[in-house]
């Protein structure tokens, strides 16, 4: 177990550095710099700006400085709770190239909690509802609850956030009588959070529900479940107590990649609902070629995803008795 955790930890650290290197290469090999699109800058001004942001040094030196600046120099749990990257790890991501005088750390600290909250609620909703309804569907295979849920799941994977969110906004924001309407902008009170979370989680609810149902049906013919049935245990008790436990580890293993996939949706949802999260910074910095902010966003997302993946892997490993014993 400890060996596995250690192995996964080293792998994650390596992975983060691989992504950082890829990011560095992608950004540096391109012809246009971040300032080349500004027509009203004189050549000497560009040179000065590039010097200011350290773009004029040699490639290798830049790479060394880049990797050094990203490497954690300390670990402070208080900083983690405050979403302060500098306080937590001693990492300074520099200044934004477009928001003049704003530090990337500060921009991320302001937007990261919102995005994290949105993603977390959506994932939790998808997991709880998807898994429970998937188990329920597998209890009645090919009967009406199963049929209805299957249609629901298929709709889920066919209506991604970018199509669902406008529909939800139209319905809950405008068509309902005004006493029942929900706010369709920003991220303040709990009622603001309902629609974005729904829009984001629907797709994952569908795919998790399908997955759970398929795994449950697969194990339903296993001897130990037949034994439980022969003992006279109730259908629901068998499904939730015995069946679900064995399908849990593939489901948890699925959460890791899903968390990464969830990002795509969360960028879209943040854009539609005008939520000031990291997705907005990522998209705007990509459109404006604000490289320091873009790199900051990409790396923070990468670290989040890799950490989530690793945790999911370790839990799945722990839940699987085969791997636990060996």
């Amino acid at each position, binding site marked *: 177990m400890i060996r596995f955790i250690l192995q996964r930890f080293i792998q994650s650290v390596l992975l983060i550095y691989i992504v950082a290197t890829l990011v560095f290469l992608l950004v540096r090999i391109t012809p246009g710099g971040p300032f080349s699109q500004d027509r009203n800058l004189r050549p000497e001004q560009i040179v000065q700006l590039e010097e200011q942001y350290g773009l004029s040094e040699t490639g290798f030196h830049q790479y060394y400085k880049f990797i050094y600046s990203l490497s954690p120099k300390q670990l402070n749990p208080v900083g983690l709770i405050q979403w302060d990257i500098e306080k937590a790890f001693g990492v300074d991501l520099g200044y934004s190239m477009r928001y003049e005088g704003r530090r990337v750390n500060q921009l991320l600290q302001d937007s990261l909690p919102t995005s994290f909250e949105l993603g977390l609620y959506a994932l939790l909703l998808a997991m709880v509802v998807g898994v429970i309804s998937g188990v329920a569907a597998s209890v009645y295979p090919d009967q009406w609850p199963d049929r209805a849920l299957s249609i629901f799941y*298929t709709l889920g*994977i*066919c209506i991604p956030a970018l199509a669902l*969110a406008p529909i939800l906004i139209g319905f809950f924001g405008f068509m309902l009588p005004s006493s029942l309407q929900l706010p369709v902008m920003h991220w303040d009170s709990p009622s603001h959070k309902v629609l974005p979370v729904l829009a984001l989680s629907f797709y994952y609810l569908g795919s998790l529900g399908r997955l759970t149902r398929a795994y449950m049906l697969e194990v339903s013919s296993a001897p130990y479940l037949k034994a439980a049935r022969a003992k006279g245990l109730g259908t629901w008790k068998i499904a939730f107590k015995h069946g679900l436990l064995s399908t849990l580890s593939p489901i948890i293993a699925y959460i*890791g990649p899903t968390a990464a996939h969830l990002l795509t949706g969360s960028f879209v949802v943040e854009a539609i609902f005008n939520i000031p999260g990291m997705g907005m910074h990522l*998209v705007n910095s990509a*459109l404006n070629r604000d490289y320091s902010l873009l790199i900051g966003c*990409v790396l923070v997302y990468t670290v989040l995803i890799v950490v989530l*993946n690793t945790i999911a892997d370790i839990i799945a490993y722990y839940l699987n008795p085969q791997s636990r014993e060996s």
Partner: protein
Amino acid sequence: MISRLKKLWQYEPGLVGCSVAFLGIATICFLGGLLIPHDPHVQNLPLGPTSPSLEYWLGTDSLGRDLLARILQGGRVSLLIALSAAFIATSIGVTYGSISGYLGGWIDAAMMRLLDILYAIPFILLVILLMAVFGRSFWVLFIAIGSVQWLTLARIVRANIIQLKSKTFVEAAETFGQSRANILIRHLLPNLIGPVIVYSTLLLPTAILMESALSFLGLGVQPPDSSWGSLIRDGADKMVSYPWLMAFPTVFFVGTLLCLNLLGDRLRDHLDVRKL
């Protein structure tokens, strides 16, 4: 041929129905544009946004462009990107998976390790980075999407090859002194057509989703061209005053995804591909 199709229709009406529906959408997108008298790019500013009429079947957008023509043009872009991305992904995935599975040993171990690493990289971020760095062109878009979607297929192909290569027909071919490349290409790969078709079909909706999400964010297809993602974005902005601008592209988009997902499921059941 006809009788086989008839039989298929008898036993698998869902499969045939979904294929016909998808082919129908694709045909409408690629050939329908020729029949409509309106050009997707020609603006008619004094006209502005109008609701559906006999002249403009699905209405016009705020620049007076025919919405149907734009949806069909967007469909061509979305489907072309998805098809080429799926093609690239299938080629890479099959090559990688079959080499890894057939050679086995340390090569296989190394190739699978690399795959594990690639699996954990959040590619959407790299695609966004690519789009920011290389400019937002059609080519970058489909190469970027295609080159990130092959991972699952490579795993599936590898698992199947490993299962097949201990079969007697492979042993027979080896006894006859056939080269390894020959065995792989002539004897093993043809057996994989089923799973490859199923998973390539399921790649299409994924690629469409990715492209539309990027276009929706403004990082994909650039104006004046459109794709379903960017049309839904434009429509969503004006949804309250001109609901058809959002409704019609969404119907096409969701309809296509529905067809492709159902088609993939039906194909999986029909060809009896084991889930991995």
